[in-house]
């Protein structure tokens, strides 16, 4: 792992409110311009780790920093201002607004001209340009996910966090989505992703984190994790 990760959630311990701890000393990091993926069995704390890094949960201990700056005590809105963008798993678009209006809302906090950024999003996701005036709720599942990611990209983030972007999406669309995620990473944005489809996700990952019961079980590059017989046996079905 490189010495200076761009975004790091370090030794996070905690859970939801006053309940039991879900994460135990969990560390997740992503380097600039790379793709880091969090995988693991159900209930392992993957989404919890993501939400903790975004600031939606208060951790008992641990720290989060971006580009060297400690942001542990910032609210999610303030973290957005620092360059983070978060795409939740569910209800991640404004269904009654058009595709274009969704993107405009994504850039709500920006005061400058957003036409160039919108053009970049349309270049990354051509189908959105085609359907820019259509209500977002009328699009198919995979297209809605593209709207959701496009919306997050409108803030020109430095880190894009995706919570199970391929949930409920057909295998072909899943491949297409992963292709687009790689394209986004190529523009220099770091990507931190939680995924259920471990095998496909690790194939595109520069760094993989396997969480089990809130702890780091395996941490390595995507390729090495795919090749590791232990990991394959436990999570990838041989």
């Amino acid at each position, binding site marked *: 792992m490189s010495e200076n990760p761009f975004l790091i959630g370090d030794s996070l311990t905690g859970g939801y409110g006053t309940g039991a701890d879900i994460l135990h000393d969990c560390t997740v990091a992503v380097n600039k311009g790379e793709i880091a993926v969090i995988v693991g069995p159900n209930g392992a704390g993957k989404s919890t780790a993501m939400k903790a890094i975004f600031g939606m949960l208060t951790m008992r201990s641990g720290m989060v920093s971006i580009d060297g700056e400690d942001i542990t005590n910032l609210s999610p*809105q303030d973290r*957005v201002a620092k360059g983070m963008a978060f795409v939740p798993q569910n*209800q991640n678009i*404004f269904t009654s607004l058009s595709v274009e*209006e969704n993107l405009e*809302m994504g850039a*709500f906090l920006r005061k400058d001209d957003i036409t160039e950024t919108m053009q970049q999003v349309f270049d990354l996701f051509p189908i959105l340009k085609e359907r820019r005036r259509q209500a977002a709720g009328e699009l198919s599942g995979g297209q809605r996910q593209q709207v959701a990611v496009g919306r997050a990209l409108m803030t020109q983030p430095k880190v894009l966090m995706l919570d199970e972007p391929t949930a409920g999406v057909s295998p072909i669309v899943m491949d297409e989505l992963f292709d687009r995620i790689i394209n986004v990473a190529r523009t220099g944005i770091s990507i931190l992703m939680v995924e259920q489809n471990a095998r496909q996700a690790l194939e595109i990952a520069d760094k993989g984190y396997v969480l089990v019961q809130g702890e780091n079980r395996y941490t390595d590059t995507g390729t090495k994790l795919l090749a590791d017989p232990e990991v394959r046996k436990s999570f990838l079905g041989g």
Partner: protein
Amino acid sequence: MDILHALIVLANFIIVPAIAYGSQIALGALGITLVAGVLRFSNFAAGETMAFGTMIVILVTWWFTALGLSIYPLPTALLALPFGIIGCTAIVLITDKFVYKFYRRAKSTSVVLVMASLGVTFIMNGLIRFIIGPGDQRFADGARFIIKARDFKTLTGYKEGLAIKVTQSITLVTAIIVVAALFWFLNKTRTGKSMRAYSDNEDLALLSGINPERVVTITWIIVAILATIAGTLYGLDKTFKPFTYFQLLLPMFAAVVVGGLGNPVGAIVGAFVIAFSEISFTYAYKKVLTYLLPADWAPTSLVQLLSTDYKFAVSFTILVLVLVFRPTGLFKGQST
């Protein structure tokens, strides 16, 4: 078969009044549907809000008349309208600050807010009766008719007259302007879009940096504008009496539910459905049928389905039918 005369009678007693009434209900219903969409509760104080705004307009109208101001042939009340809007805005923002904000912070369910709005209704109603008295107030001055029934008959030579009141045409023109402005605001401005976004998905809107308090404030301001205009137009057309506006809640809510809760276009369509239904179901069709049917089939009775006392029963029935068979309304709003 005298279709022309039948049409004139229909126009005079159903179509023209229903268009005016529908426009007034539409403006009030738009206010209710906005609150339902953005603030996520059914505002039972909507009628009293209309009454309060109208009351201020009346008081200022009296003052203007005493000063000798006039814009004949238009009613002086139109001059007083901006003052009524300001007064109404003040009262709704004060109400929000001292009543609804508390429950919003406590994340209370919609029902709690509805009950709170009922309390607001009683207080506002008492306040209005205290200030202006419980009696009838007629404050329409200026010309009464654009065209009188008698003049219509003289002009056209027909046996039936069509009267169009000045207030009815003001209502239609004002309603068109207000609705156009509202839709432009909601669809073309950044603030309007942020309100729609907040109404659509509150959590995502907060994540996008939309300021919830600002959205709430702007919503109440728009509600005050709509309510004052609707109440004034209704009061000009008919009369101002504090209790009447509470009764208007029923057709307004029926309009909102028919159109789909939270859907502005639906509120307008619903308003006209309700207005036309109320009037057509309680009209005596004897004259119209006499013109349309052959002479020996002409009816001897009034051919009135329901007496005009039952107007609100018509709205109520439509409301219940929609809730039972299609609760999301014509335009698929939120399910009540």
